[in-house]
């Protein structure tokens, strides 16, 4: 399916309505090209976590959409986001997903760069003459880099909102995650699972805070596991679907877990099973605050456009093509919490690992969805659920019931804004 008119801002005004979106938005390569330029290469995008490059010389290969990005740490501790492309003839510089080195050397002709991207030299310099400057031949850099709670973001736009402005109300969720560590630090050190689906990236973004699907897609998990999770995604749930602004959405489970009022219920375990962690949390925060933190648990938030924190795990969404998307998944790990970390690793392996149901179930839906939207009729996807009952909450955010499509509408409103607003020349 292709969109009915040529690319323009008004086209997206027509294709993205307040309560329905056109199917071509998931299937048209021209739409994908516009999204790359106006969303992925313009707004802040999550790249990696500082804990993945703890030592000088450490680097990891990450991405901003289809762009391969080297996240490196120099000897002074500075973090750099570099394009994974030799400045000479364009060869891919790093092949390994992670490593430690004092310099990056292209395997094609030996051009060599520092961890900060500066050109250190090339073989047989006589061939370039004495006047060839090295200063203009460094690696491409992501123009803006910033971090919050160790989460590193990059933006290809030279100017624009700051990272904190971009995060807005979503920043508080990153604080919540860090607060679950007895030392106040998240560590993404457990390794990554990489999972590709034949589906458009927005299907994943929309699904992450969709409280309507778990009772169907994930029913097999709810049937075999003894947990409170199924209650969270029911019509009686006290959880809230919330538009945090800027395309960020959350499925706020705190009201439901406060109703249950059992520490660590969000993690499907008990204080008795994690005595060291709970003791460390009480020592840091005191009994009352520690209990509140352990009852509230970790957030379920989709930070637009690619960082999804799902209580115990973190997903990074990477679009490759209009119908190809990679999910990079890792368990959250917390500094000073080895017993919690072990359990997190096991639980995440069980849910999204090769034998897990969670990712497999969702992925099956993504791919069916991609095939479904290719149908010529009907042309539109319906996003009306909860329109009749959403409201502005005490913090000024638009909020709906747990199973409402408040979050999907919020995502599409933001996408429409980004695809239609005037771009700087």
């Amino acid at each position, binding site marked *: 399916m292709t969109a009915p008119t040529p690319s323009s801002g008004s086209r997206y005004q027509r294709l993205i309505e307040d309560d329905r979106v056109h199917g071509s938005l998931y299937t048209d390569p021209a739409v994908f090209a516009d999204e790359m330029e106006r969303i992925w290469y313009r707004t802040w995008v999550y790249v990696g976590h500082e804990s993945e490059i703890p030592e000088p010389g450490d680097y990891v290969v990450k991405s901003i959409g289809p762009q391969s990005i080297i996240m490196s740490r120099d000897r002074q501790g500075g973090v750099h986001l570099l394009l994974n492309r030799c400045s000479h003839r364009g060869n891919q510089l790093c092949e390994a997903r992670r490593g430690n080195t004092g*310099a*990056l050397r292209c395997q094609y002709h030996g051009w060599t760069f520092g961890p900060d991207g500066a050109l250190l*030299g*090339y073989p047989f310099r006589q061939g370039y003459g004495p006047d060839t400057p090295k200063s203009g031949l460094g690696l491409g850099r992501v123009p803006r880099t910033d971090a919050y709670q160790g989460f590193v973001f990059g933006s290809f736009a030279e100017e624009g909102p700051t990272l904190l402005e971009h995060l807005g109300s979503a920043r508080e969720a990153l604080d919540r995650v860090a607060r679950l560590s007895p030392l106040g630090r998240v560590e993404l050190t457990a390794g990554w699972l990489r999972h590709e689906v034949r589906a458009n990236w927005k299907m994943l973004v929309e699904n992450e805070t969709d409280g309507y699907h778990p009772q169907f897609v994930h029913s097999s998990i709810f049937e075999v596991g003894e947990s409170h999770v199924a209650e969270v995604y029911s019509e009686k749930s006290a959880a809230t679907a919330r538009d945090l602004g800027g395309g960020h959405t959350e499925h706020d489970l705190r009201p439901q877990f406060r109703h249950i009022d059992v520490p660590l219920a969000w993690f499907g375990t008990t204080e008795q099973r994690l005595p060291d962690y709970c003791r460390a949390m009480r020592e840091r925060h005191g009994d009352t605050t520690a209990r509140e933190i352990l009852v509230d648990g970790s957030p379920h938030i989709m930070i637009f456009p690619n960082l999804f924190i799902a209580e115990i795990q973190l997903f990074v969404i990477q679009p490759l093509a209009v119908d190809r998307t990679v999910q990079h998944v890792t368990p959250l790990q917390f500094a000073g919490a080895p017993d919690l970390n072990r359990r997190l690793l096991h639980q995440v392996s069980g849910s999204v690992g090769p034998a897990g149901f969670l990712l497999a179930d969702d992925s099956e839906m993504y791919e069916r969805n991609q095939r479904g939207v290719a149908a010529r009729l009907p042309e539109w996807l319906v996003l009306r659920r909860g329109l009749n009952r959403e409201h502005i909450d005490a913090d000024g955010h638009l909020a709906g019931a747990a199973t409402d499509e408040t979050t999907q509408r919020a995502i599409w409103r933001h996408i429409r804004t980004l695809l239609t607003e005037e771009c700087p020349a």
Partner: protein
Amino acid sequence: MDETVENEFASVTVAVDEAGNDRRLRVRDNRTGRVAWFDALLLETFVWTPESELRALLDPSRHRWTADPAPEGEPR
């Protein structure tokens, strides 16, 4: 005991060599077989070498890939 130290750009085998009157490091470039020895003073010198000079050493044209003649008595 031999230890391999490598990343995707280079691979060397490091061993403590006791053939001389003091212990020193023997480092072998696994891709070419070239070997060099580093005594305690040389290693200490590296520890004190500013980053700017270490970066200069990483210039491929500096020693290895150059048309300049090698210093007298040394192989290129």
